[in-house]
């Protein structure tokens, strides 16, 4: 191979550079999202809309389908794979998935934020259910810029 040594050496340096973050973080403990279990309110019926494994992977798809069904198709009741009926509403989720700790007196409060008037969720230190995972995954959610939390709704 013409100038083989230089090419192979460059490739090794390139690959080492590319994989540096993986080796740099190797062996370090990844704590994962925090407060997940402690942020589920235990009620008489704590069964989720669908099995937890499904919800973990597909809750965003389910929320999209719910939005389509409620807003555009006028369907307000969801019957899950076990035949159990749920009202299509964000409140149905938040009833369990919120400790209500983020409620505030300003009127419009935000379970993912702990503050009002801001649309930035990633910088939040809230102990709420959504934000604990979404901060970890660095996925910004915009639900609470319009919808309010259940603590207010049930007051």
């Amino acid at each position, binding site marked *: *191979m013409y100038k*083989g040594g230089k090419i*192979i050496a460059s490739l090794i340096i390139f690959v080492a550079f590319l994989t540096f973050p993986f080796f740099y973080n190797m062996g370090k403990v990844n704590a994962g999202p925090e407060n997940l279990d402690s942020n589920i309110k235990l009620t008489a019926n704590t069964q989720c809309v*669908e*099995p937890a*494994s*499904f919800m973990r*992977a*597909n809750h965003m798809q*389910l929320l999209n*389908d719910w*939005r389509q*069904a409620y*807003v*555009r*198709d*006028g*369907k*307000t*009741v*969801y*019957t*899950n*794979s076990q035949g159990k009926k749920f*009202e*299509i509403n964000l409140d149905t989720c938040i009833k369990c998935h919120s400790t209500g700790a983020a409620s505030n007196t300003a*009127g*419009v409060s935000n379970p993912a934020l702990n503050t*009002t*008037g801001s*649309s930035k969720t990633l910088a939040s230190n809230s102990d709420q259910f959504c934000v604990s995972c979404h901060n970890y995954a660095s996925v910004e959610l915009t639900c609470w*810029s*319009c*919808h*309010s*939390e*259940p603590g*207010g*709704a049930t*007051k």
Partner: protein
Amino acid sequence: MSINRRQFLRRAGIVTALGLGGSFVINAAGSKLAEAAAESTYGTSTQGLAAKHWAMVVDMSKFKSKDDFKRVSQACDLIHNVPDIGNTKDEIKWIWEDDYEHTFSGGENEYLTESFKELPFVVMCNHCENPPCVKACPTGATFKRPDGIVDMDYHRCIGCRFCMGACPFSARSFNFRNPRPFIKENNPDYPTRTQGVVEKCIFCVERLAKGQKPACVEVSKGGLIFGDLDDPNSEVRKIISSKFTIRRKAELGTQPSVYYLVGGGEHA
């Protein structure tokens, strides 16, 4: 440690193929999860109100003063978190008042009775049968439901305001500012809007789904009558087919579903 180009490419190909194989496994696991929810279904609530064509009659004999009108508009503002920004430039209107001349423009009569000139005409989205806003909306955020209500999907609104240009009744408002600081009393059961979204009266579709009539109808003391226009036994249909009603800008052919009963009461 000398390999030729052919060997190098072959080895690189094998490594790539192995990487691809990994993603197939992940995809297969995902589709199994999706099957778990395939049996779920969506349905309508049994207690919800249903109709083939929702329509509203505004009985002008019941709107004599500003107070009659205020009661109606405040009920709407409160329940839908309509902000009070305080200037006409940024204002959000769902149900508002206008005078006869502007409500029924083109049909005004120079020698109209004084009482009519001063009446606060209750004005809202007309929920037209041929809604120009729906045609103009490029994203489908404004759409006509099968029951005749022209509804808004705020999630889809991109704020282009084509619908505002298309609507001949100025029934749509644009959120030039974040409405949240201007909401005096927040109703947590109904979402607010964000800056850059168009909003309007939606005949309280969220209340109809729960079996309640629109908020303005409930507090109007009979001034607003709401019902199914396609049902010959409904109060709305009986009024429209037996008394003289007028509609806003009927000459445009949008076929509004809001009728004004102007000849009622003492004017009969």
